[in-house]
């Protein structure tokens, strides 16, 4: 299995909802296998200032959860989408309607940041049965015993499935999304090796990573680096996806 070199994060509706399908097509052309797509939320408690500001800009421009999901309907030129969201918008939509909205979109998995495993078992089971597994999140505060528990509660659907449906998200440091703090790669390396010893699943590592050297260091561990806030900021500043990602994808290819 070849390593997925990069997992980028985009905020739906920022810079604009109209630009989303073109961004996804460009991401596909760049060879990206999967992409995280943020559903803008009013109170993103796990996000730092950059993603919070992007979410508020998107909401201000009318990027409601329904409009985002409707705009994804019928899109085929796109990497697999991992829908990154908070629980409340999904609760308000309700499972039956959510499943109708997701059908025919490139969404392949959900990452619900404020939904720990076991909190809404019925919701998770319904979505998993319909083909939308929840991404397991493992943070520096997650003990190895708890990590095993999470990985079995949100099981690996098997090697025949895509990266988006199989990977576990390893949070690189304490805190919220965003750059600004220097990430210490030592503990991350130990953590990734520890998790690789207990699971066959692909791992993605994110939070605070943006410079090509850190991204390459994650790849050297056999894991996929996530780039979020830095990318969202660069796109908001007018750079295009190719400019901002190509440098960050190529160094070990």
């Amino acid at each position: 299995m070849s390593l997925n070199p990069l997992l980028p994060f985009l905020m739906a509706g920022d810079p604009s909802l109209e630009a989303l399908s073109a961004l996804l097509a460009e991401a596909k052309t760049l060879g990206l296998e999967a992409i995280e797509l943020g559903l803008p939320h009013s109170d993103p408690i796990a996000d730092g200032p950059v993603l919070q500001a992007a979410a508020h800009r998107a909401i201000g421009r009318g990027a409601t959860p329904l409009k985002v999901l409707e705009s994804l309907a019928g899109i085929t030129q796109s990497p697999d989408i991992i829908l990154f969201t908070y629980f409340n918008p999904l609760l308000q939509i309700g499972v039956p309607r959510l499943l109708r909205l997701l059908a025919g979109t490139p969404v392949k998995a959900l990452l619900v940041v404020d939904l720990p495993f076991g909190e809404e078992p019925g919701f998770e089971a319904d979505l998993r049965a319909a083909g939308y597994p929840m991404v397991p999140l493992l943070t520096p505060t997650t003990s190895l015993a708890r990590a095993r528990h999470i990985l079995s509660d949100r099981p690996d659907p098997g090697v025949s499935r895509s990266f988006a449906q199989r990977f576990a998200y390893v949070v690189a440091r304490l805190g919220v999304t965003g750059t600004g703090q220097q990430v210490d790669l030592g503990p991350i390396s130990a953590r990734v090796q520890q998790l690789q010893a207990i699971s066959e699943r692909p791992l993605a590592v994110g939070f605070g990573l943006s410079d090509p050297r850190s991204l390459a260091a994650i790849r050297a561990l056999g894991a996929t680096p996530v780039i979020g806030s830095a990318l969202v900021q660069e796109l908001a500043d007018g750079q295009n996806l190719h400019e901002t990602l190509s440098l960050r994808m190529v160094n070990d290819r």
Partner: protein
Amino acid sequence: MTAGFALPSRFGAQSLGGCYAPETLMQPLLDLETAFQAALADPAFLLTLKGELRHFVGRPTPLTPAPRLASKLGLKALFLKREDLTHTGAHKINNALAQALLAQRMGKTEIIAETGAGQHGVATAAACARLGLGCTVYMGVTDMARQAPNVARMRLFGAKVVPVEAGQGTLKEAVNEALRAWAGTCDRAHYILGSALGPHPFPTLVRSFQTVIGEEARAQVLEQSGALPEVVLACAGGGSNGLGLLVPFLRDELRRVAVEAGGHGAALGEHAARLDGGRMGVLHGCKTLLLQDEHGHTAETASISAGLDYPALGPELAALVLDGAVEVRRASDDEALSGARQLCKAEGILPALESSHALALLPALAAEGVATVLLGLSGRGDKDLSTYQSRLGI
């Protein structure tokens, strides 16, 4: 049921509450529950807490009969539970001090808190100063402007007050920022949440440290009048004051009433009355009644009182309301101001704007034929002087 917790994390027939927290905070929340249970089972901790509540906070607080206001309103008797007389001037200190002691017991060296009206921030800053803990308080910029005396008090106690500029700059944004800060420092910091909300075990923790209000009040009213009142009445923002007063009366045959902020209008965004237009939702780690738009985005709120200006009702109080044990009423900004003025003139007591919402309901209760009321005077109004001056033209 959240994996790993020992205490029930859900309330009522609709299973409100729960623990909708980012994974980074799950182990700290599990550890907090363990420490909380161990502390409650430790006689030495309970003795220390009791001593601090007595000698630092000033408990028990008095239950003051208010005969002149009662007769003006047409009530037979009115009793005020005087949380305004605690050190730092509001019920918030009961929980802040207890959680600070708990944090110290857990070996934490730093404290994080959010604050709306500033009363919880001041209480936490004072408790931290007393125990020698570092303290950082997150406060919305709108609230910092309208509760400026409390900002100064926190700073005098050595706390760092961090302005939160996002959104409306009120309590909701302060909680967002405090949760984010805790995720970054949970290896050394404890987050002292001030309301009976947030992810499990916070609602249970806060309620259990606040029921001292109702336990004292119940014994005092029986001692003073030989009977329980017909109505026990408290204002409710998140619910720490409401639960603190009302829960010890749950088994009694009487009406338990919580008053929400009616703000300046009935439309979404003009008030903080969650029973009118609030729907089941998840905010700040718990499922409860929430003012939100159809997309699940939190709605804006409005209230003259910073402490009630919050879009969600705490899950345990919301469950008690939905299950019929507690009634909810609302009082507008103007009604609260007039309630405050009446208490000032009749009894020489200046109430906080939050507590004034409970006072504002008294005429309606009297009109319904209620004769005896016990009211939770949750805090004092010094912090609100500038609002009273401008709105009452004094």
